[in-house]
């Protein structure tokens, strides 16, 4: 039955089919069973807890379920029982002795029960007294069975008989006054007396209430009059007060000192107007405001004089001043006052009672907020600007070490090559740049000085210098055995006859003349002729003359073929059309090196221009990278 009711209700309210509702209904109880089984307890709100209980005696069902109803359910049920009193079980199914009946009927304190009780009791007592009186005559000769039958009949007749008949019998039979009935009458009388006393007390209280009401009306009238006065005084301007004080001064003829008079006249309206404002501002917020504005001395004064006297601690703890928030305990040296503003919701009454101090506090907080924000912006801008400046200042270094490391390695390797040719013992020299070639001049000079002694030309002679016979040996690419060969040739030269030397000089002069033709007369700044070729210090390359007489740019030298090819590719992207090749050189103790060479140029000027173009494009790429880094950074 209940299942159908609940299913109908669920399907009606939630627009579900009866099948779905039934499934939900079953699932609820199966869920409870599952919960009890798995967790040994299932707590259902407003109903109770189903807990597993272990039975030691029963082997089949070791576990049983105990239901602990909620208090609300028990109370509800008990209340329901009281309302429907008497309970069905408490109604006597069989006739009981008179004393028991009286006990059950007298006890309930509920008024309707008390009112009904006398009638019922009278009926029952009268009927049972009659029965007992009749029975007393006949009981002697009756068996127990007969007695039971008779009693049953009597009860049945009592149930069937209408109340009128019972009343008639009650009237016929002489009333038997029992002690219980007497007690009942006494109680009723007592109740009546107490009710009369209560009514008297109520009348007295009403009269007192009327008096108090009258007094309250008088007080309200007085308060209104005071308020009107206060408003009048507050509406008057300072000039009015000034004129009033002047008048008083004149009237008293300097007998009375004016300042106390002014205070006495001015202060009352202020006191009457401000109180709601004082309650609005918590003392912690005012202290903070004074700290922000710099009036530290004022905080102590205000603490001592104004706010501690006006605001009690209870007010501080119960509200935030607006009557909306809950907590507004403001500690010093923190921004809790700001939170107080945020928490407080806008209220029309607050705006009406907003004081000048409140406005000041609001402005102070706004200013503090603005200053803090401004400080953050300024610091971030300064940091950013300083980073940009640092980057700009160190851009050459950044370029050198991060964006074109190839040049460094290149030059370092070139330097190693030269050092291997010129001074084998200077391997520890790690200076990394083509400029280091200049620093190595003294070493070369030393070697050339020796060569000069043997009639040879200095290897670091400028390009424009006239060709010398032994120059070709120094111009050729450096080898490990270069120096040894030179020394050998020097020695051989010393041994050879002068004619041969002259012939050789003629041959050398002829080849130099050819080279001079191919190189052309140029005034290239920063280009010096060395044993390796023409070293361009400005563009950090070496111009090497090929066997065909053309010039090529030796841009770098690498320890692997792959690196050299990579460099050639990168240069190819910078200057499309510039072809490069790798030249493998075995330097003996120094290992094998791969020289990256670019293009073939008829003259040295062309090679120089191409190298300059290469370097300028690389610089442009670097600046573009720097700008992009700064822009996006």
């Amino acid at each position, binding site marked *: 039955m209940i*299942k159908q009711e*609940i299913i109908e209700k669920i399907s009606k309210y939630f627009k579900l089919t009866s099948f779905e509702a039934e499934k*939900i209904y079953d*699932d*609820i109880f199966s869920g409870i069973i599952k919960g009890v089984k798995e967790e040994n307890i*299932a*707590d259902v709100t407003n109903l109770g807890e*189903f807990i597993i209980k272990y039975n030691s005696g029963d082997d089949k069902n070791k576990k049983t379920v105990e239901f602990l109803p909620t208090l609300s359910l*028990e109370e509800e049920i008990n209340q329901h029982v009281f309302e429907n009193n008497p309970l069905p079980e408490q109604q006597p199914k069989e006739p009981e002795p008179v004393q028991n009946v009286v006990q059950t009927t007298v006890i309930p304190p509920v008024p309707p029960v008390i009112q009904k009780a006398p009638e019922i009791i009278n009926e029952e007592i009268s009927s049972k007294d009659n029965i007992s009186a009749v029975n007393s005559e006949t009981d002697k000769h009756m068996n127990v069975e007969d007695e039971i039958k008779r009693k049953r009949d009597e009860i049945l007749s009592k149930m069937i008989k209408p109340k009128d008949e019972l009343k008639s019998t009650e009237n016929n039979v002489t009333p038997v006054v029992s002690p219980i009935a007497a007690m009942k009458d006494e109680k009723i009388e007592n109740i009546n007396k107490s009710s009369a006393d209560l009514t008297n007390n109520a009348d007295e209280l009403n009269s007192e209430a009327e008096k108090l009401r009258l007094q309250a009306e008088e007080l309200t009238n007085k308060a209104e009059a005071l308020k009107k006065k206060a408003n009048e005084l507050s509406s008057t301007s300072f000039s009015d007060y000034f004129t009033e004080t002047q008048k008083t001064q004149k009237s008293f003829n300097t007998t009375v000192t004016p300042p106390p008079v002014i205070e006495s006249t001015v202060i009352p309206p202020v006191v009457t107007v401000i109180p709601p404002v004082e309650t609005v501002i918590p003392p912690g917020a005012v202290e903070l405001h004074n700290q922000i504005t710099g009036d530290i001395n004022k905080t102590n004064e205000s603490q001592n004089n104004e706010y501690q006297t006006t605001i009690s601690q209870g007010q501080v703890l119960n509200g935030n001043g607006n009557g909306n928030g809950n907590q507004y305990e403001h500690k010093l040296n923190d921004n809790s006052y700001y939170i107080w503003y945020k928490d407080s919701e806008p209220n029309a009454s607050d705006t009406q009672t907003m004081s000048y101090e409140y406005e000041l506090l609001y402005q102070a907080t706004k200013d503090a907020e603005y200053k803090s924000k401004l400080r953050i912006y300024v610091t971030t801008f300064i940091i950013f600007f300083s980073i940009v400046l640092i980057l700009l200042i160190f851009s050459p270094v950044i370029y050198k070490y991060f964006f074109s490391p190839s040049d460094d390695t290149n030059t370092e390797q070139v330097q190693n090559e030269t050092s291997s040719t010129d001074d084998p013992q200077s391997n520890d020299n790690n200076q990394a740049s083509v400029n280091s070639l200049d620093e190595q001049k003294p070493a070369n000079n030393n070697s050339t000085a020796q060569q000069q002694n043997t009639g040879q030309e200095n290897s670091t002679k400028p390009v424009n210098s006239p060709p010398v016979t032994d120059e070709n040996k120094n111009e050729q690419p450096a080898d490990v055995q270069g120096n040894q060969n030179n020394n050998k040739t020097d020695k051989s030269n010393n041994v050879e006859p002068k004619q041969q030397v002259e012939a050789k000089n003629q041959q050398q002069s002829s080849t130099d003349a050819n080279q001079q033709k191919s190189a052309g007369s140029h005034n290239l700044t920063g280009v010096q002729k060395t044993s390796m070729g023409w070293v361009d210090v400005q563009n950090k390359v070496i111009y090497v003359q090929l066997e065909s007489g053309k010039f090529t740019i030796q841009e770098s030298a690498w320890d692997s073929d792959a690196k050299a090819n990579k460099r050639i590719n990168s240069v190819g992207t910078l200057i499309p059309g510039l072809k490069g090749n790798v030249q493998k050189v075995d330097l003996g103790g120094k290992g094998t090196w791969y020289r990256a060479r670019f293009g073939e140029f008829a003259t040295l000027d062309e090679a120089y221009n191409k190298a300059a173009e290469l370097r300028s494009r690389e610089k442009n790429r670097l600046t573009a990278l720097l700008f992009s880094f700064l822009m996006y950074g």
Partner: protein
Amino acid sequence: MTTIDLINKLAVEHNITTGRAEMIVSILVERLTEKLKKDGEVVINNFGTFSIRKKESGSFLKMDESLLMAKNKVVFLPDKYFLENINSV
């Protein structure tokens, strides 16, 4: 297991919102209580029987005048299916 677990389970199994499931459970409990108050006994198939065990009223404080308090208690007798389910491994 609590009511929240039961509600969540219902919501997941029947694809309804937790609010609806909560409403359904509350309706069930409400109806059950009303029926129990009215009839004094509620029988739920495959679950058990809720009934009110009535006790004599008595005073719970030693006073001159006895203060009546009904001590009726809600009793639950689990169904056979329930007991079998619990005792099964």
